[in-house]
């Protein structure tokens, strides 16, 4: 029997940053938090969906059975999913679909990454394997380089400036200061961004998110399961997936990401809402230019207008559409297998009164957006807060 409504009953994250524990310990920490948050025992989990990209860098692939075994439920089937930096949301979508289809009534959806021990230079190389390597990484483009090429195209087309990009970093660092689990707790100014070392022009160090370790986990379940629990939960009301040409060169317009547009269209249609109904959004800001492009592709601002909106404060916590209240990838951090799940954790914390000073007052509908590589794959989800009577 299918489940017409799919809900998030629990959520938890480790701190994001440079972590000492190994990748399995990091994953288990988030899993434990999510299980306790849902008020369930591991025995109620019927499947484990795990997202991860570079487990091999910490000597562990085939991660799902290891995580299930260490949760004391070695008989529970698991699956590990990779979709570059979008792994978390793409995995969440598959987990969602399996509950919706009725295969499971309760499962663990967990993302994890550990790369910082490999060092910045090697991490940069590992990440470049997420590009269309024959055309991009193999010709000397790093990931900052690929997004820098998108930034240059955007700035040229829409007359945006490096200051416009810097405004995104400043806003997300301000939000991250309010998030105890964020990787980077540092207030910065536009001038700090502009004076930081160039990584790949026009992007500078403070335009780029950090490499992070960390894990985030959620408990997904049927509505019936959530109602029986008597605990707070939220409903997944929209889910969309999209794809773009893998290489930047394959896109007719480099100032938009087709996978985001397609995923958002599907999610809005399914949820029966429009961008104006979204109270806040967690979007994929691996680089400042990405957030500018995202919030246009998601329909919050017309094409070419996002830079002005950010400058005017429209995306700040008290703005018309708060974007990345968690601090985003830029400040909260970017453990790539976990990032998409971490966005869902932020929505859950916002809806259940656990977001502290970064709470978006009165929020009832929120959107998460996460993509892989330069947007070759993307997923968008929309959530509704359920008010228990």
């Amino acid at each position, binding site marked *: 029997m299918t489940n017409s409504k799919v809900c998030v009953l629990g959520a938890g994250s480790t701190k994001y940053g440079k972590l000492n524990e190994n990748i399995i310990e990091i994953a288990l920490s988030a899993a434990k938090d999510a299980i306790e948050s849902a008020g369930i025992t591991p025995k109620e989990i019927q499947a484990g969906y795990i997202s991860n990209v570079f487990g091999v860098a910490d000597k562990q692939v085939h991660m799902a059975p290891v995580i299930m075994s260490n949760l004391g439920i070695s008989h529970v089937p698991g699956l590990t999913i990779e979709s570059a930096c979008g792994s978390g949301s793409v995995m969440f979508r598959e987990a969602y679909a399996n509950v919706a289809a009725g295969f499971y009534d309760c499962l663990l959806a967990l993302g994890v990454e550990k790369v910082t021990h490999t060092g910045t230079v090697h991490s*940069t190389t590992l990440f470049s394997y997420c590009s269309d390597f024959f055309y991009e990484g193999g010709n*000397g483009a790093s990931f900052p380089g*690929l997004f820098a090429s998108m930034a240059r195209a955007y700035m040229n087309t829409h007359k945006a400036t490096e200051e416009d990009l810097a405004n995104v970093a400043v806003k997300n660092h301000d939000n991250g200061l309010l998030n105890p689990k964020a990787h980077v707790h540092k207030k910065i100014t536009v001038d700090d961004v502009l004076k930081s070392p160039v990584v*790949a022009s026009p992007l500078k160090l403070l335009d780029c998110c950090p490499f992070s370790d960390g894990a985030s986990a959620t408990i997904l379940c049927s509505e019936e399961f959530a109602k029986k629990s008597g605990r707070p939960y939220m409903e997944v009301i929209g889910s969309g997936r999209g794809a773009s040409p893998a290489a930047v060169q394959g896109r007719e317009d480099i100032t938009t990401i087709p996978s985001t547009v397609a995923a958002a269209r599907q999610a809005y249609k399914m949820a029966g809402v429009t961008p104006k109904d979204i109270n806040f959004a967690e979007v994929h800001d691996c680089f400042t230019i990405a957030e500018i492009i995202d919030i246009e592709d998601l329909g919050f601002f017309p094409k070419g207008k996002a830079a002005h909106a950010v400058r005017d404060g429209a995306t700040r916590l008290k703005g018309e559409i708060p974007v990345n209240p968690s601090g985003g990838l830029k400040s909260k951090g970017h453990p790539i297998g976990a990032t998409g799940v971490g966005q869902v954790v932020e929505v859950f914390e916002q809806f259940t009164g656990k977001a502290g000073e970064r709470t978006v007052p009165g929020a009832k509908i929120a959107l998460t957006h996460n993509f892989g590589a330069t947007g070759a794959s993307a997923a968008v989800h929309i959530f509704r807060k359920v008010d228990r009577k």
Partner: protein
Amino acid sequence: MEKLSAQESTHQKFIEAANRKKILAHKCTNCGHLMLETVLFCEKCSGSKFEHAELEGTGTVVTYTIQAVAPEGFEDAGSYAWVVFKIDNSHLRASGFLPGIKTPAELPIGTRVRVAGFDPKHGLMLQK
């Protein structure tokens, strides 16, 4: 090591054309759509029969970056740009490695570039 098929690999054919300063494309024999050599089914009609279309390796810069921090394997490359360029007389774009670029002033969007060859270490080599 065994070869996947008797045919030369698509990447190898692309590289050989680049060494002749050309960009090798596929033209669908069913609908005429043009794609880079490495695509195996037509994006428009899903046809799988193609004729080679060897394009002149010249074009104009669409966008680029100057990699101040070079990835592994490019530490010895000096200051360079990674460039996306539109290939002349087609809708296609390709990307490559353009050495010797230090500042954006040296490479305004629209600058003419041409394929100079394929370097095993640095990929598709471009020059202004």
